[in-house]
């Protein structure tokens, strides 16, 4: 794979968008995002997650009211939920099995990369009140909201930083080849 590979490029150029236009997102764009979520890896092929796509602007505002991590004004949301009934059927012990959250992350990344490919911006949200969002969406008790993907057409963002502040993280900063080496 070269650095020009489209998949690699999509991964490298995706950013969290915190400024969106108010343009509505066509259903034809949301469908491939859901297809990509469906094709995300799932531990043991258990498929214990459900996805709620929200296009209604009043519902989005209601969900946003209980989502302090939602700093932008998206025009669509995908709420990834754990289906606790399905998890019980599959014998998943949710309190101890972290793979459920790994699967949520994998599906979310697929959604965000697909959105990016379609010219849309996304921002992940985990900072929300579960009880508030559950009530806002009238979720049944067996669906637990875990993660919200905000979606919209991105606007250019200007990040004002203090002089000399660098946020660059390199591969070398996080990688140990062969074995972990203690830093001095």
């Amino acid at each position, binding site marked *: 794979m070269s650095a020009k590979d489209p998949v690699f490029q999509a991964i490298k150029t995706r950013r969290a968008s915190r400024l969106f236009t108010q343009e509505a997102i066509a259903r034809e764009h949301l469908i491939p995002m859901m297809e990509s979520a469906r094709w995300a890896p799932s531990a043991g092929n258990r498929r214990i997650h459900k996805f709620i796509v929200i296009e209604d602007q009043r519902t989005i505002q209601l969900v946003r009211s209980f989502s*302090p991590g939602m*700093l932008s004004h998206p025009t669509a949301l995908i709420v990834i939920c754990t289906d606790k009934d399905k998890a019980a059927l599959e014998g998943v012990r949710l309190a101890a099995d972290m793979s459920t959250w790994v699967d949520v992350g994998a599906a979310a990344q697929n959604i965000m990369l697909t959105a990016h490919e379609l010219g849309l911006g996304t921002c992940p949200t985990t*900072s929300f009140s579960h009880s508030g969002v559950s009530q806002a969406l009238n979720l049944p008790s067996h669906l637990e909201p875990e993660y919200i993907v905000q979606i919209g057409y991105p606007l250019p963002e200007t*990040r*004002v930083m203090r002089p000399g502040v660098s946020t660059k993280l390199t591969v070398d900063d996080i990688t140990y080849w062969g074995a972990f080496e203690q830093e001095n």
Partner: protein
Amino acid sequence: MSNQIAMAEFEALKLLAYLTASADISLFEPDLYGPFRLIDAASQLAECVLANDPGERRDFWQAIKAEIDQKKIWLMHDRPGFREFLAAMPGKVAKELAKEYLNERMEGWRVGQNPISPTFHPSSLPRFK
């Protein structure tokens, strides 16, 4: 005399939703996210005031909101800068609030009517040269 502004009950309800949700998630989020939620709530309060005609102090509210919105995300990129920004913010608010307490414009202000302390009077504040 400060302006009376009318905050719609619905706006208060939205702010209540934000504050209660923030309190909820602060139970498990990193400690520094709590101050972030509070300063973001301050931005929302400023937005609400600006939408309800703050009168002659409009520039102050606009500046406060703009600074918060610009610097609050330093939480994610520049933690020392975020802390410095938070530490400096009350000073800017105090400068404006002091105008109310120390200005002769506060018509009708009398000892015993101060909501902070019934015995406090601005003239009792120490003067520094």
